[in-house]
């Protein structure tokens, strides 16, 4: 575990002491995994670090065609709602059903922002509003977004939406507004508080348990382990974007 991510004043911070003590207790009960996750929990005043790279692994074999749990969870979490105009309504995650034209094999998967290491949306943004956080999460800074929608056109995954209409009743943790582009934030408000994105949580409780969230750089973590032990693929690997979202059985 890297030690430089731990702030020197953490030893004096009683909250963190309690957290570490709790983690040690949980580790004693449930094995070594908990202490690694909790000990890395970020303090509120701590900046995100490139030592971490958040990502997802989605097993399409466990994702069923009729299930929409991840999409509903995302819409609830961020209060995304349509205006009955499917071509322009916001959509951060969507379900796709696929049929292999040669074999007839059918599969289903959620498509969302792939949180690329080399995101085309960031390349084309004229104001720097589209950016990649140090921990790999690709976001729109809506304070600087001018709504030009170059990023919407540049994204090979069609993951971005534009807000066409004035909104109200936004969630306090998920500001959204007319004239700006938006997309999956990997539930950054949850991730910063050491929680799992809403879609992953819903997939595990109400869906097929097809989604795994974790740190791609944490070799002892569940995500990096799963990617090391089993074959996986990137959608549009030919573009060489090194996506943070990977698929199995695709």
């Amino acid at each position, binding site marked *: 575990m890297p030690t430089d991510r731990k702030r020197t004043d953490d030893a004096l911070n009683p909250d963190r002491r309690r957290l570490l003590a709790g983690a040690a207790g949980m580790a004693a009960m449930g094995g070594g995994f908990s202490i690694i996750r909790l000990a890395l929990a970020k303090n509120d005043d701590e900046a995100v670090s490139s030592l971490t790279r958040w990502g997802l692994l989605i097993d399409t074999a466990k994702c069923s065609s*009729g299930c*929409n749990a991840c999409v509903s969870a995302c819409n609830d979490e961020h209060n995304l709602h*349509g205006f009955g105009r499917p071509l322009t309504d916001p959509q951060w995650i969507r379900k796709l059903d696929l049929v292999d034209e040669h074999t007839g094999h059918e599969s*289903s998967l959620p498509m969302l922002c792939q949180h690329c290491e080399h995101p085309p949306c960031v390349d084309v943004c004229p104001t720097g509003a589209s950016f990649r956080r140090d921990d790999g999460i690709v976001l729109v*800074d809506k304070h600087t977004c001018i709504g030009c929608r170059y990023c919407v056109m540049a994204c090979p995954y069609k993951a971005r939406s534009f807000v066409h209409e004035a909104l109200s009743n*936004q969630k*306090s943790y998920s500001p959204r*507004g007319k004239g700006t582009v938006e997309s999956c934030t990997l539930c950054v408000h949850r991730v910063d508080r050491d929680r799992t994105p809403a879609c992953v949580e819903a997939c595990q409780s109400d869906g097929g348990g097809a989604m795994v969230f974790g740190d791609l750089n944490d070799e002892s973590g569940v995500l990096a382990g799963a990617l090391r032990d089993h074959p996986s693929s990137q959608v549009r690997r030919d573009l060489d974007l090194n996506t943070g979202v990977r698929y199995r059985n695709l």
Partner: protein
Amino acid sequence: MGLDRLVPFVALILALVSPAASADLPELPRGKGDACVAPTDEMRRDHMDFLLHQRDLTVHDGIRTPRFSLVECVDCHVQRNSEGGFIPVDAPEQFCEICHTYASVKMDCFGCHATMPDSASADANTAASVVHTDDVLGVMSYRVTPVPEGGGTDAD
């Protein structure tokens, strides 16, 4: 100049410079707790700079300290109506709006940001999922079909 000619002149000057000629100072609704996160004078003068600084730290670096967080401002300063429901902070006479109207400064925070704590807006919208046909996977020789009815529903 006789005194009788001076009186109306002095009265006119007094009328021009007296406070009664300016708009009344806004009376701000009180927030929760004993004190704000900084002295009132400082908050009046510099709150926009605090918020601007904090927003960049939060959006780009994930720093989520509560002191100058807009969400915390709203949580403390939001008022309730007679039925106990929250009144948006950007409604007329409310904490943010009353001063911004007085100072004639337009704020655009609340085009995107929540004007009330989350509990009040939780049930305001039904979620909808819109399913699009798509060709992003075309390169892999897949044909993409929309998820059948029942998978997603429209709000309207």
